[in-house]
């Protein structure tokens, strides 16, 4: 197994505004979102970060994609450090989350070319890859339709395609099926498995147990910013279903608090 991602001691603390303090029902000004997180991921596997809402999954993935900087720790992705070489990291990853939007004004065709240029993909590769990806996700018929006129499902598929214009080695996917209709969700999960078959590495975050069971080779359980367990699915589950095992771990960490 070739290690492609090594995360070491990653930490992130946010300062809470008064409004956020009220929402979080706390008087503390600081919130530790990610606390000394370390794990590794291997080439050609799907690694899942499983945890409840607010556990720090999204923050971790945003740090890995260099959108935000860690307060401490580092991660090395395919030889590039997220601190020392963020551009290098971004050239090797495809990051997809619902917070990343595409400009409504442009067509899928224009956006594919535009993002390919930003990723320095050669023109001939752009053409063949665009044909392939558009056909794979049924976007070809809508290639010249402005994003604002596409259906929600088509927009989501286009976002996936755009994040992968440069055929990255590592795909970081925050809540891959969140907000997707059942058909698009199935298309996406099938495609993730297909990518794994091609030797790509996928790091995803989710709180959906079935998704972990169906997709992930290895899983890390994250609660309150800390990685409590990490290993292959069978190692973490320890003979139980992932759902039962998660609640057992959750109870160990949090006690009877719900």
């Amino acid at each position: 197994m070739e290690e492609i991602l090594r995360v070491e001691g990653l930490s992130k603390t946010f300062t809470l505004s008064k409004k956020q303090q009220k929402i979080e029902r706390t008087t503390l000004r600081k919130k530790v979102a990610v606390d000394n997180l370390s794990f590794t991921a291997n080439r050609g596997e799907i690694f899942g970060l499983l945890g409840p809402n607010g556990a720090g999954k999204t923050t971790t993935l945003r740090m890995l994609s260099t959108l935000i900087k860690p307060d401490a720790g580092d991660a090395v992705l395919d030889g590039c450090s997220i601190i020392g070489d963020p551009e290098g990291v971004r050239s090797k990853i495809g990051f997809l989350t619902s917070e990343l939007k595409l400009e409504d004004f442009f067509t899928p065709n224009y956006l594919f070319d535009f993002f390919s240029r930003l990723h320095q993909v050669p023109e001939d590769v752009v053409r063949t890859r665009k044909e392939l990806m558009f056909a794979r996700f049924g976007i070809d018929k809508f290639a010249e339709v402005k994003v604002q006129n596409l259906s929600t499902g088509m927009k989501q598929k286009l976002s996936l395609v755009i994040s992968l214009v440069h055929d990255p080695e590592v795909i970081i996917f925050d809540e891959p099926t969140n907000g997707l209709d059942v058909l698009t969700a199935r298309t996406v999960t099938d495609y993730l498995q297909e990518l794994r078959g091609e030797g790509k590495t996928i790091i995803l975050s989710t709180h959906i147990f079935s998704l972990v069971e169906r997709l992930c080779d290895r899983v890390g359980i994250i609660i309150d910013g800390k990685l409590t367990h990490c290993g292959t699915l069978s190692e973490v589950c320890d003979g139980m279903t992932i759902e039962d095992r998660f609640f057992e771990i959750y109870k160990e960490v949090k006690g009877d608090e719900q």
Partner: protein
Amino acid sequence: MKNNTWTIIKKEFARFFGDRSLMFTTVIMPGLLIYLIYSLMGEGIGKMVTEGQDEVVTMRVENMPEFLAAEIASDSQMVVVNQPFGQEDIDMLADEDLNIVMVRFPKDFELLVNTYDPKCGLPAPNVEIYYNSTNNATSLVYKTLTAFLDSYESGMSNRFDVNRVDDGSTAQFDMATDDSIGAMIWSKLLPMLIVMMLFSGTMAIAPSAIAGEKERGTIATLLVTPMRRNQLALGKIVSLSCIALLSGISSFIGIALSLPKMISGEDVELGFNYTFGDYAAILLVIFATVLIMASVVSLLSALAKDVKSAGTMITPFMLVVMLAGLIPMFQNNTPETFTTYIIPFYNSIEVMTATFAHKIMWSNVVVCLVSNICYTGIAVWGLTRMFNSEKVMFGK
């Protein structure tokens, strides 16, 4: 990686030129509106000046003196009726549609005037002229009458004249040429108008291109590409400057075409004679101004969380720029100190003022250009830092 800046510029252009309504409202409409509004205003002013000149006015006169009767007989606009009038008749003049003027001279006016001694302490003989100032025709008659009576009065005790121009004489006392009068007026007016137009052009597009992208979540999509943040910042500022420049040029064409109409009612001929060098200097300064304008508006837009709050943040800055535009109106000479030309915006205003006043100094143009380009460089650095700052880009 270098052409990422060009990719961003091309994308901004594609966004702008592909949106016909945005292009119309930003580039076509300002020039067109300015042309229409200024032309209509010019026509309105011209109409106000000439209206009533062809209308006939009845002049009801009491005790008409002979010298006036002879003068008025040659004026086809006035029909004289020698008829006394009372207060009731005067009250009728409140109706602005009546082309009537009533004039009351004291009895034996000429005798009274000739025998009146200003030192005697008694009030001088008084002429009463009743008219309605909202009626242009009666207003004109009132002006003609008072001018004639004034000259009659000054003719009675004429001891000396100032700058008399005898018939057939071509003597000129005001040695200013039409060109220099024009230069003075343009140098006070145009810098302010140009700056205002450039600013409105920048305001029309920059907040949407940066704060709008933050608001819509599309900036994050750009930030996860391997492009360097400074390439994004430079691409944004250069593309926004070019588009704002287009908008400014449109407005300027509107002004240039409509100004002759605007001043057509005035009794002056304004020369607009500038050399190729003057135009080149103005264009260079306009570009430098637009660069720094786009830079500051971009920085403020990046700080704002949405387009609406960007507008609020930019307003105080806009007021400062407008005030700088007004400075030439209150100064006689452009400053000569070097430091003046390194103050952003103020330097552009002063260089434009000097150029329009035919007092261009290329050293100042160069200082203005170089300093503005340096400030733009600083702004690119600042915007890069903001694109790097998670608090600015993703702060709620």
